[in-house]
């Protein structure tokens, strides 16, 4: 591994004919061993970004580096990207080990050696003893592992995963998620994983990149992304939110439909329109009826999930969502001052 980031995308753009979709001016670095998860709604350009790195699509502007080498105009096959496709793209007529050994076969590694390496990699992904089967005889999770082994066996410069878990059932998905993380760390390879699932993004990533309409909105470690989202879109895409519009009335207070909310000190001018973000789990049911940011509330909707409850409340002229473990009736809620954040208004 070099000191350079293993993957560097700088100002990469691509637009599809018709100009409505594509990606614009994307810059991302991925360090050796780092896993960046790219998340966004469908059609936001996630897969396009992946194709620009692999060379399956050409950049119309910007550059791509892999392992310190500028590959912007390099051919797909010379880029050495290991890719796990959404549909796995296993070769249906080849056995499991032949699939895994294929990248070695086209590199003219002799048969015994490539069989040995393929078996070793199958061991790594937990598929010992499946070598002779055909892909169609495997479950979705097993096919996924074969695809992963095939993508890693030739020691690629980067591992790219295009919605690798979307075709799996819920139970397999969670165990595969941990498996991918384990193998990725063990191989210590710079990786980019595409998903539209926020749990997947937050739990897997070293850093999460949020894409919207082909643009990179924010890239940050999961916790930072959740706690300090760049805007309302990121905030609501990455978790549940209360977005409250209001008007500044004091250096630490905002008037909203809910009532006057005391906020951390801010530098906004008086009368400015602002948008506040409060995460539902930060709002507490209150046993006292008065106090700073304590509001009378009426339960509108109460969903019980065992460990927690998601409750919608009517507060003043507005609505609040809260997540709480508290049982029993709720008549007042408390918004801790530190839980209130300002978001840019668009």
């Amino acid at each position, binding site marked *: 591994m070099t000191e350079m980031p293993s993957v560097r995308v700088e100002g990469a753009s691509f637009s599809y004919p018709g100009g409505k979709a594509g990606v614009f001016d994307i810059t991302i670095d991925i360090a050796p061993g780092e896993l960046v998860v790219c998340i966004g709604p469908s059609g936001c350009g996630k897969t396009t970004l992946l194709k620009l790195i692999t060379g*399956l699509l050409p950049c119309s502007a910007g550059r791509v580096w892999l392992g310190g080498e500028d590959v912007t105009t390099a051919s797909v096959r010379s880029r050495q990207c290991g*890719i796990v496709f959404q549909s*796995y*793209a*296993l070769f249906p*007529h080849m056995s499991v080990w032949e699939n895994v050994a294929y990248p070695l076969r*086209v590199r003219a590694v002799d048969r015994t050696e490539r069989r040995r390496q393929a078996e070793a990699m199958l061991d790594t992904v937990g598929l010992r003893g499946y070598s002779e089967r055909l892909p*169609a005889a495997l479950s979705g999770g097993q*096919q996924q592992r074969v695809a992963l082994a095939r993508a890693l066996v*030739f020691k690629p410069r980067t591992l790219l995963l295009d919605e690798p878990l979307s075709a799996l059932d819920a139970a397999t998905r969670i165990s595969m998620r941990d498996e991918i993380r384990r193998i990725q760390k063990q191989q210590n390879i710079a990786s980019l994983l595409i998903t539209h699932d926020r749990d997947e993004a937050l739990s897997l990533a070293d850093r999460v990149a949020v894409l919207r309409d082909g643009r990179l909105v924010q890239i940050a470690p999961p916790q930072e992304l959740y706690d300090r989202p760049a805007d309302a879109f990121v905030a609501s895409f990455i978790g549940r939110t209360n977005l409250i519009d209001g008007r500044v009335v004091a250096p630490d207070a905002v008037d909203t439909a809910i009532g006057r909310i005391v906020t951390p000190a801010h530098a906004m001018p008086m009368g400015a329109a602002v948008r506040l973000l409060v995460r539902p789990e930060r709002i507490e049911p209150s046993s006292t009826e008065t106090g700073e940011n304590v509001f009378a509330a009426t339960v509108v909707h109460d969903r019980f999930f065992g460990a927690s409850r998601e409750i919608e409340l009517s507060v003043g002229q507005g609505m609040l969502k809260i997540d709480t473990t508290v049982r029993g009736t709720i008549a007042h809620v408390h918004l801790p001052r530190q839980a209130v954040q300002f978001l840019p208004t668009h």
Partner: protein
Amino acid sequence: MIPRWITVAYFLYLASPIALLFIGSFGDLWLNSLLPTGITVKWYLDVAADPNFRRAFMASLFVAVMTSVACVAIGLPLAYAVFRTQSQRVRAAARVLYQLPVAMPALVLAFGFILVFSSDTLPWLGSIWLLVAGHIVLWLPYFLQTVVADMQRLGLRVLEDAAETLGSTPLQRFFHIVLPALRLSVLSGLIIVVALSIGEFQFSNLIAGFLNRTYPVVLLQAFYGATGFACAATVILLTLALIASFTGAFVARGAARLSVAGDER
């Protein structure tokens, strides 16, 4: 209960002519009675010994094989081009081609051939190659349809992309991925072509020269003669068709088994 009776009635309606043909082919004497009397295989031996039938059988086989060869040589690259194209115009052209056998019956094609190839400039009417050419026009669309559909079902595009990112050259992709992945599709396409070609009557009847009449054309003549003989000759054709359709079903099942569950979403 009523749907079951309908099914049974329909099956009887379908099967009874075939059953009668079968019975007739082994019947010794069949005159003005519901069923023939006596059992014999002489009709089959007669058919096998008949030089007209032997020649017709070979002609049919020749036409079927040559049509198959042409389907692979022309149809496979064409199918690949249709599959890979981004152009709406090519896709539209392919759709027209698929509909061609429906839009243009064999009869129309035959009249066209007669008009063009009975002229002094192109005096090829009666040549077996003209028969082959006609069969190619008739059956290529079926071959294309089968193969293109399988390319889509297999997700050949993504398989090629995968192979490319894994480091293969275009030539390696063709021989390692495209050809082997499609071998069953090509086979099932060819079985359809052979089955259709062997049973074809309309076009061949009008175009074939006297010495290269195909099996179904000669078969028609047989019905002016002994019933048992005609039945035996028909059963032979029927057996060929059944073999083709069973092989086809078998190959299709194999192809379906190969397709990876992940592609079915």
